[in-house]
C-alpha cells in the first residue's frame, strides 16, 4: 500500500523513560489522522519525531515513500502548526508567511504569488502588513496555518493548534480546518487532547496512552465500539457509565450479573464466544431510554440527583446502587431532582469489557 506517512517500529526514550514504545503506523494519502490522548501520552513527541524536531531511539520514519529518518525538518516535505502559534514576533504577516520561501531561495515573483494565494485562501489579505502582536488569537493561528500552507507540501502536522483559543473561535477554526482539508486534499496529522476536535475532524483516530496506541479506528467505531476500558472512558462527555459484575454462561444463554441487576446478553455482539468471569458493562448516557417499561428493555431503576439542561439536550444524573449514572435526553426536561425513574438499556449498543479491560 502506498502511504503518505509510515512509522516503522519507532521507539523514543530518554534513558530508562520510554515515551514511545515500538510503534508502527501507516497513514494513507489525503487521510486526516488525529492523535488523541491525555497529557504525557507521547502524542506531541510522536508528531515532533515525524517533523524531525525530536531525536528518536530506534525505528524508521517514511514520508511520501522516502525514508526521512535522518533528514532535516525542511527536507521532509512537511508543514507544521504549533499550539503557541510560534509566529516570528518582529516580522509582519507577509514576512512570516514568506520566511520559509526566502530561506529556500525561491524567486521573488514566485514568493509573492504564493503568499498572495495563501493569504486569499485564509482571508489574511488585509492583515499582511501587520505584526503578530496586532492580531487576535484566531488571526494568529490562521497566519500559522498559512505559514504551513505556503510551503506547498504533502503533509501537514498540527500540534494542538486550537488549544489556546476561546471556545467560539475554536469551533470556527475547526470548521475552517476541515474545509481546508476537503479542498486541498493533503495528508494531515493532528494532535489534540480535545475529543470533540478528534471526533469531528478525523478520518481515523489513534488514541494513545503511555506511548502505545490503544485503538486506531474511525471516530464512529471508537465512539460506539471502544476497544478497551481506557478508550471507553476517555471518549464521550459525559463519560460512559460502568457497572461491575460477572458474565454467567451457565444456563445456556449468557447473562450479565451484578449485585442488583441481571441482563440477558443474547443481543450483544460478542467478539469471541462468551465465557463466565469478571466483566464491566459500559453504556453511554445516550444509550439509555427514559421510559424503560414502555420500551420493553431491561431497566435500571434509580432516583434523579441532578438535572443539567443544555438547551437542545439535557443530562440526568441518577443514583443507582451507590453509583451515579447519567442519561442524555433530547429536548427539554420536566423531571426534577428526587423523581424516580426507570430507564431502559439497549444491550446491543452497550460495551462489555473483560477482567483485563479489553472489549469482549
Amino acid at each position, binding site marked *: 500500500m502506498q502511504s503518505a506517512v509510515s512509522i516503522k517500529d519507532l521507539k523514543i526514550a530518554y534513558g530508562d523513560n520510554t515515551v514511545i514504545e515500538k510503534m508502527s503506523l501507516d497513514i494513507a494519502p489525503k487521510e486526516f489522522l488525529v492523535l488523541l490522548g491525555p497529557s504525557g501520552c507521547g502524542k506531541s513527541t510522536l508528531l515532533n519525531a515525524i517533523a524531525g524536531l525530536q531525536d528518536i531511539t530506534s525505528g524508521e520514519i517514511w514520508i511520501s515513500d522516502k525514508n526521512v529518518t535522518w533528514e*532535516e525538518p525542511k527536507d521532509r516535505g*512537511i508543514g507544521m502548526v504549533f499550539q503557541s502559534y510560534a509566529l516570528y514576533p518582529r516580522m509582519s504577516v507577509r514576512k512570516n508567511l514568506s520566511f520559509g520561501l526566502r*530561506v529556500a531561495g525561491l524567486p521573488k515573483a514566485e514568493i509573492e504569488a504564493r503568499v498572495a494565494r495563501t493569504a486569499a485562501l485564509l482571508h489574511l489579505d488585509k492583515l499582511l502588513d501587520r505584526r503578530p502582536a496586532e492580531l487576535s488569537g484566531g488571526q494568529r493561528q490562521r497566519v500559522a496555518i498559512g505559514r504551513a500552507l505556503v510551503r506547498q507540501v504533502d503533509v501537514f502536522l498540527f*500540534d494542538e493548534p486550537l488549544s489556546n483559543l476561546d471556545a467560539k473561535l475554536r469551533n470556527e477554526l475547526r470548521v475552517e480546518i476541515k474545509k481546508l482539508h476537503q479542498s486541498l486534499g493533503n495528508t494531515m496529522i493532528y494532535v489534540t487532547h480535545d475529543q470533540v476536535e478528534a471526533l469531528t475532524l478525523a478520518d481515523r483516530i489513534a488514541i494513545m496512552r503511555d506511548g502505545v496506541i490503544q485503538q486506531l479506528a474511525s471516530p464512529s467505531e471508537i465512539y460506539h465500539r471502544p476497544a478497551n476500558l481506557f478508550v471507553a472512558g476517555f471518549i464521550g462527555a459525559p463519560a460512559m457509565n460502568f457497572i461491575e459484575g460477572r458474565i454467567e454462561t451457565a444456563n445456556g444463554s449468557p447473562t450479565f450479573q451484578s449485585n442488583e441487576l441481571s441482563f440477558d446478553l443474547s443481543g450483544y455482539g460478542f467478539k469471541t464466544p462468551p465465557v463466565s468471569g469478571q466483566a464491566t458493562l459500559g453504556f453511554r448516557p445516550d444509550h439509555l431510554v427514559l421510559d424503560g417499561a414502555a420500551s420493553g428493555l431491561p431497566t435500571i431503576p434509580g432516583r434523579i440527583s441532578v438535572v443539567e439542561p443544555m438547551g437542545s439536550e439535557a443530562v440526568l444524573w441518577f443514583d443507582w446502587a451507590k453509583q451515579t449514572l447519567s442519561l442524555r435526553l433530547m429536548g427539554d426536561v420536566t423531571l426534577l431532582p428526587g423523581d424516580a425513574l426507570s430507564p431502559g438499556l439497549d444491550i446491543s449498543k452497550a460495551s462489555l469489557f473483560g477482567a483485563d479491560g479489553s472489549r469482549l
Partner: protein
Amino acid sequence: MARLHPNGPKPTQITAGRIGLYVFLLVAVLFFTLPLYTMVVTSLKTMDEIRLGQIFSLPSKLDFSAWTTAWSGACMGTVCVGIRSGFWNSLAITIPSVALSVFVGAVNGYALSLWRPRGASVLFGLLMAGGLIPYQIFLYPMVRAMATVGLYNSLAGIILVHVIFGLPLVTLLFRNYFVSVPEELCKAARVDGAGFWRIFFEIMLPIAVPMVVVVSMLQFTGIWNDFLLGLVFAGRDNLPMTVQLNNIVNTTMGERTYNVNMAATILTALVPLAIYFLSGRWFVRGIAAGAVKG
C-alpha cells in the same frame, strides 16, 4: 461625626509614614547630588578661590581653564598632555569590547537556552562559577597566558580580557532572556529551513533588542570604569582614561590642582553618565522585560 458614605475614588490621606518616606528620599537625593555639586563648582573655581576652603560656595566667576587643562595639559608625572589620549584609548578599548562581548554572550545565551547542546548545563555552571571568582585570582595566570600568546600590553589583549571577563554576566542575562522565548518558535523556523545562524540573526536577535541595549549599557559602563584590568593588560600606549585620571590625581610634584582634578574626574565619568541619561527609558524597559519573563 457623621461617617462618610463611600462613593467614587477613595480619598488619599497624608500619613506620617508618607511624610517620612519623602524626607528619606530627599536626604537620599542630597546624599548623591552633593558630591557632584561640589565637584562641579570646585572645577569652575580658581586655585586661589579653592584655598578659601568654602567648598559649597558658588564660584565668584566662571573659570573654565581647569577643564581645558584637564583635557589637554594636565601632567602625569613628567608628561603634560592631559587626559585627552586616555579618552580616545578608553573608546578604542570599550567599543570593540562591548560589541564583541555582547555578540558572543548573545550567541552563548541563545545556544544554551534554545539548542541545549550536550552538557549545556555543565558548561553554563562552569561559566557562572567563572563569574563568581574574583578577578584578582586570575590576574597572574592571565598575564602569563597573554604574554605567551604575545597579546600582553596590547589593545587586542585588553579587549580580549574584557570580553572574557564580561562573558559570564552577558551570557547569564541573554540565557535568561531567551529561556522565556517559546521553544516552538525555534522549531517553526527549523521546519521553515532556517539554521542556527539564520534563526539567531533573523528571529532571536530582533526579539532581544531590549536586552542588547541593557547589556551593552552595563558592559559599556563596566569596561569604561574599569581600572585594574586596564592598568595591568593595556600597556603604556593604551592606558584607559581611568588609569590616566589616577595618574593625574596622584601626581605628587608641585601644587595639588583640585580644580583640574575635579574637571578630569567629571570628564572621565561623563560618558557613562550620558549613556544613562540618554537611554534610561530603554534600560528600565529591558530590565523589566527580563524580570517579568525570566
